[in-house]
């Protein structure tokens, strides 16, 4: 009882720190660049154009709304990638601070995932713009778009907690994760249509990739205007929760040892 109260008290006490760290991450990301936060919009737009030209034109896969298809996949994936990569480094990167002053350590991981989520939300403006230009009609199913995003957020947080803990003890994790991210990217159907893959009997790749499940459900909501794939929804939510629980338990058990290895 007393302990639970203590945890809640600690949580609220450091709310302000969480807010300040998120603000810092976002503020410093674009400080000293002329266009500043606009890069959050320009960068995915440029990537979308490149990917559309390469895969839409050269390989002749283009439908008119292919750019939206690419953009949705790329935005969600790059949130997952940048959040987990930042989360992975959040503990070892703040070593000097952890060694000197007491702050609940989960704050470092949570703040880096949250700040990436905010940047991601800002970048959704591009999607709205492109969708309007390409006349993607909004439907009632647009209202379910937040569900895959929340699932992806929880998944990123859980993954980050696991990776942050591991990387304190084994610095290799950073490099392994870089390669793993690439694998996830190619298996997430960001710039190729899925039908062909499924037809050739290799659709199982998508059924084991929770990031793709979120992307697919997001596309159903904003691009195709159809109900979400409930199987994907439940499965990806389940995986996200499991990752979060594993991450929290692992982090909680190992956090007192961090300082001895940093």
């Amino acid at each position, binding site marked *: 009882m007393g302990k639970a109260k203590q945890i809640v008290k600690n949580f609220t006490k450091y709310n*302000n720190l969480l807010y300040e760290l998120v603000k810092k991450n976002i503020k410093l990301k674009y400080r000293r660049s002329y266009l500043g936060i606009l890069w959050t919009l320009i960068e995915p737009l440029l990537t979308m154009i490149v990917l559309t030209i390469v895969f839409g034109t050269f390989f002749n896969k283009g439908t008119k709304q292919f750019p939206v298809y690419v953009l949705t996949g790329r935005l969600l994936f790059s949130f997952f990638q940048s959040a987990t990569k930042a989360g992975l480094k959040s503990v070892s990167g703040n070593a000097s601070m952890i060694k*000197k002053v*007491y702050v609940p350590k989960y704050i470092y991981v949570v703040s880096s995932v949250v700040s990436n989520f905010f940047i991601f939300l800002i970048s959704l403006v591009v999607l709205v713009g492109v969708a309007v230009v390409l006349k993607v009609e909004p439907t009632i199913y647009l209202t379910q778009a937040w569900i895959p995003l929340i699932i992806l957020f929880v998944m990123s947080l859980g993954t980050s907690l696991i990776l942050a803990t591991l990387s304190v003890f084994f610095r290799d994790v950073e490099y392994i994760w870089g390669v793993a991210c690439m694998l996830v990217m190619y298996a997430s159907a960001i710039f190729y249509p899925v039908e062909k893959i499924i037809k050739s009997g290799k659709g199982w790749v998508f059924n084991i990739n929770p990031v793709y499940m979120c992307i697919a459900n997001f596309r159903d909501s904003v691009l195709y205007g159809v109900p979400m794939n409930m199987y994907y929804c439940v499965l990806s939510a389940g995986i996200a929760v499991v990752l979060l629980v594993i991450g929290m338990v692992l982090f909680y058990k190992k956090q007192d040892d961090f300082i001895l290895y940093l």
Partner: protein
Amino acid sequence: MKNNVAIKVKNVGMRFNLSQDRVDNLKEYMIRFLKRDLHFNEFWALREINFEVKKGERLGVLGLNGSGKSTLLKIVSGVLKPTTGYVQTKGKLAPLLELGAGFSQEYTGRENIYLYGAVLGYSKEFLDEKFDEIVDFSELGEFIDVPIKNYSSGMKSRLGFSIATVVEPEILILDEVLSVGDKKFRRKSEKKIMDMFDKGVTVLFVSHSLEQVQRICDRAIILDGGHLVAKGPVDKVARIYKNMTE
């Protein structure tokens, strides 16, 4: 914990792993694990430390270099978790150890007041309210809107000190002399700390200077090689320490 006790240190031990070749990659770990070559060079920086500090008491921690003083401070301030035993503290704690840990170099002084304040657990409202007081005390004036990577080290520690002491703590943890900034600022900061003493703050003060401890503290303990070898009124402990060091 009894009501009049501010800090209670019970059976505290701290073990470090001092392996020369620290294994921090997976391959190495697996190879050594299979070869059963994972030896840990253990080192106990502290062993079985027991003491209490009553409210309003000022306890000096004496010891030579490497006796475990700083480790003890880090444990009391919560940075390190002891391998054995526990520490309990009651009241608002202000560790004046590493001033400015958590400063962002890219941030201006103004932004860092809010960031470092948050690191120390202050609320935003509190910082809004105390902002002018902090800036005044730090004497930074117009430099408050300059990124602190352009500050001199004296300016940085002045800012750190001003933020850390803006609260009225019930427990103050001090390491060595507070040699902050130039002579003028040092006098000012010493005065601020003396004011806190007058208000009856509990102090844990670490030093290897006997003269300082005698001036500030009313009780003292001696650490030697991680063991607590003496505790009691400061004069008595001072005599023991003198014999030890001569």
